């Protein structure tokens, strides 16, 4: 039984359809990467899984239980937690208060406040500062800590590297194994293909709302992936159109 199962998901906004028959499975403890260009539907997919968007067709299940019609706050309580694109911290709350929001709602798991401060020492140092005043990297750490504080079954990470300096992004990916070690299943949205491949066991590529490629991250043909990413035929090796941020 997979931790997260998505079958034939169609979703969109008003008249505009953004996802077409998306299916994917996340095994317990697995990290799966979701790559794709802007507008491919990655955030729409995560929002649908988190419950912020109601699907038009298809189903979503958590540990075998159908959660397709569960509202967003109940999904979070059941263990599907989203770290939104752009962090979306509560600006008037302090860093610590942000992290405390989900606390106490899940059965005690590994991620206590102390464990989180150990994982993110820079957050511990700024714990009573208002979230709006933190730097980009600190905000990202708080956002992830806030999600982990709910001791989620499935962690949805939406472009955690967006707008952050490479050094900070490196630091986050160095911490990722510690998060993975706690047994949480992770769906990681990432624009940087190399980081995505390195951090995950499997990778899915979305293009215009459809899954166009999937495979084991370790053995995936990088050029084929780049082609699928842009929907173009693969160019000669070495002509890498992907820009590193």
């Amino acid at each position, binding site marked *: 039984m997979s931790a997260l199962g998505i079958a034939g998901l169609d979703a969109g906004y008003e008249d505009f359809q953004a996802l077409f028959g998306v299916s994917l499975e996340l095994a317990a403890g697995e990290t799966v990467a979701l790559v794709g260009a802007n507008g491919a539907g990655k955030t729409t997919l995560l929002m649908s899984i*988190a*419950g*912020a968007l109601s699907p038009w067709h298809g189903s979503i299940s958590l540990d075998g239980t159908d959660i397709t019609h569960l*509202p*967003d*706050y109940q999904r*979070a*309580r059941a263990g599907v*937690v*989203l770290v*939104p694109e752009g962090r*979306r911290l*509560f*600006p*008037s*709350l302090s860093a610590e*208060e*942000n992290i*405390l*929001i*989900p606390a*106490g*709602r899940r059965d005690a798991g590994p991620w206590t406040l102390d464990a989180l401060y150990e994982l993110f020492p820079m957050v511990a140092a700024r714990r009573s500062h208002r979230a709006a005043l933190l730097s980009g990297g600190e905000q990202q750490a708080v956002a992830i800590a*806030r*999600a982990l504080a*709910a001791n989620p079954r499935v962690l949805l990470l939406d472009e955690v590297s967006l707008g952050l300096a490479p050094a900070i992004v490196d630091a986050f990916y160095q911490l990722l194994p510690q998060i993975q070690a706690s047994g949480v299943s992770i769906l990681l949205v990432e624009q940087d293909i190399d980081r995505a491949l390195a951090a995950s066991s499997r990778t899915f590529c979305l293009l215009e709302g459809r899954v166009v490629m999937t495979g084991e991250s370790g053995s995936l043909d990088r050029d084929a992936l780049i082609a699928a990413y842009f929907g173009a035929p693969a160019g000669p090796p070495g002509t890498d159109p992907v820009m590193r941020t």
Partner: protein
Amino acid sequence: MTWVNDLFQGIFLGGAYALTAVGLSLMFGVMRLVNLAHGDLAVCGTYLVTTIMAATGVPLWAAMLIMVPLAFGLGMVLQLSIFGRALRTGPTAPLLVTFGLSVMIENLLQQVYSANTRGVGAGNLDVAAIHLGALVLPWLAMLKLILALVVIGGLSALLRLTAWGRRVRATSDDLAVARLQGIRVRPLFASVTGIAIAAAALAGTLNAVTTGVYPTLGALTLIFAFEAVIIGGLGSLWGTLLGGLLLGVTQVLVSQVSVPYATLASQLLFLVVLAVRPHGLLGTPQAVA
């Protein structure tokens, strides 16, 4: 020396205005809901107090104690049934719905209680006062300010120090993300509306001891509450207190000069603040929407 007495009287009246307004401020800050039935619901609480006193013979303070949880419950029921739905329906729905509710309540009260002004008997409390030389501080009037300070101070503390308060602040910052983090927004909103109505009903009852209560009193109550919030500044509970105090003092001081223009003077104060500093005295400059 009488102007000092008047000043205190104005401050006490302002306390009642602030207590009425704090609920309105809270509801808008947390839910973005301008409750046009707010004043009428406060008046309902006052009528409830008169009914309790008439039916059971208990004194005013006891009737108020009984009324508060009932008003809280009414607020919760309204939020869960009507206001919540209105919020989910669209941006103009809450205005239309709360205004419609306001009309319903006023006419209902008129049918049930008649249009005549009803008195609220306070017994000894009416005349008991502290005398400090030439200064006369009536207990009933002081209670208005004391309750305002207790409620606003208490709410501030609750918001800053408790888990509930944390969730309220988070939801008012970002409703969508609050839900995504698992916060159950409906009961949270219900508790906020409950507090709002209970506080306003308390304040309205205290004021009604002096002025009596009549079915259309809700309109003026709403207007004063609204003005206190705007003058003080959106998003600031202490600002609402300040706004209420300014309104009360203006009202009483002007009434010493000219009774008919006292209420108008308060309205003009509001319009001046609106013209000169729309975000209020303690609010932050941003769109007032």
